């Protein structure tokens, strides 16, 4: 009867709504149980984006806010693949990122951190995945920044990422962290995730093979969207 073949959110590893150590979640977390439809819903369709929607430099944060020079900071390539839980590539899907500059300051009306803005850095980018689900951004490595959660709370360096997928129900926002950052275990936003391996998968790995000598280091970050729930047929194919 059911055509709703998308696998559910894995609540054992996804963060719950209420995580009191992350103070902002206290009053913004629903307390009633979510309602789970057992029929095909409108969210099994989703929006489509086209190459013509984007500009040629939209995925290059080193130059998409150019005023009089290059942005300050460590030049990096952030790249990876968007796939689903069956390992199938998600081609042509919109990936958007936003981040602080090298000093940890966001170009945002509401960010009043004392670190300076960079006149040549906006801090946002977007791209469509290619036919194999690959995406890439050129950017600078963001700095950590303080935030008003506790007396002395600092976010580890991170890039925010938004991915669509083919269905509105697959919509995901997350954050990309960087290998070796000592602030990662201290962060209540990261610790909202109740599963250590899932946290480790939010950490982009240095990839020397993808780096460009004398230009930039590369960090790999794959995104796995909820996929079609596996069927008997697919299990056979995968199981050899």
């Amino acid at each position, binding site marked *: 009867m059911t055509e709703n073949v998308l696998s559910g959110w*894995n609540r054992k590893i996804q963060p719950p709504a209420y995580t009191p150590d992350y103070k902002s979640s206290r009053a913004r977390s629903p307390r009633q149980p979510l*309602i789970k439809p057992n029929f095909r819903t409108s969210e099994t369709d989703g929006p489509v984006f086209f190459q013509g929607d984007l*500009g040629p430099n939209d995925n290059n944060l080193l130059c998409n806010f150019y005023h009089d020079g290059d942005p300050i900071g460590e030049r990096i390539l952030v790249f990876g693949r968007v796939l689903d839980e069956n390992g199938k590539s998600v081609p042509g899907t919109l990936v958007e990122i936003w981040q602080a500059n090298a000093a940890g300051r966001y170009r945002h009306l509401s960010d009043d951190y004392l670190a300076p803005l960079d006149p040549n850095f906006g801090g*946002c980018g977007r791209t469509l995945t290619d036919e194999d689900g690959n995406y890439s951004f050129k950017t600078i490595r963001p700095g950590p920044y303080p935030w008003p959660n506790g007396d002395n709370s600092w976010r580890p360096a991170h890039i925010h990422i938004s991915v669509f997928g083919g269905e509105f129900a697959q919509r995901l926002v997350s954050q990309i962290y960087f290998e070796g950052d000592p602030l990662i275990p201290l962060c209540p936003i990261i610790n909202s995730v109740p599963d250590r391996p899932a946290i480790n998968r939010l950490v982009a790995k240095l990839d020397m093979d993808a780096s460009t000598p004398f230009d930039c280091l590369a960090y790999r970050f794959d995104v*796995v969207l909820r996929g079609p729930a596996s069927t008997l047929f697919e299990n056979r194919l995968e199981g050899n």
Partner: protein
Amino acid sequence: MSGKPIQTVSQTAGPFVHIGLVTPQAGFEVYENELGGDIALPDIPGQRICVEGAIYDGNDEPVKDAVIEFWQADGEGRFARPNANDGFRGWGRVGVDFETGQWRINTIKPGPVSEAEDTVHAPHICLWIIARGINIGLNTRLYFDDEKEANVSDPLLSIIENPERRATLMASSKAENRYHFNIKLQGDNETVFLDI
């Protein structure tokens, strides 16, 4: 990678989400073409409507830094398809106003959506809400209180047993072609959110 890939976990969009998803609201521009302002272009047939509202937290404070995305069918109940070349994307997004906490969209009223097995969904708009303090995006639906007959047989509304909870999904008709829809994240009159 050995074994099946495991779904990436969600993290809050944070207070500066506007930079990435509704850039001009952050106070600058990067993209020539901002996405999300055109759920249905002006030449799309249908009843033009305006929907507005606010989001409140568990302390009844307005949530002024949220971003909402919308997904809907056209006036005849059809979702935009990959090859649809008719100016109907069926998707949009807005940032809630920093000062007033209000949001507003202009769109067309969706038609009833027919699914297989003779199931008809009443006219509705799918919403996805992200913000600082929201660890995983919240899905809900907006129905129209002037579609009483269609709402009675809607499959989703039908599985919400408590009528007071069902009412949290109703946009109220304020004036001709104007609807009002508040979202309550927590507490009294908490909006029904979906696990889809």
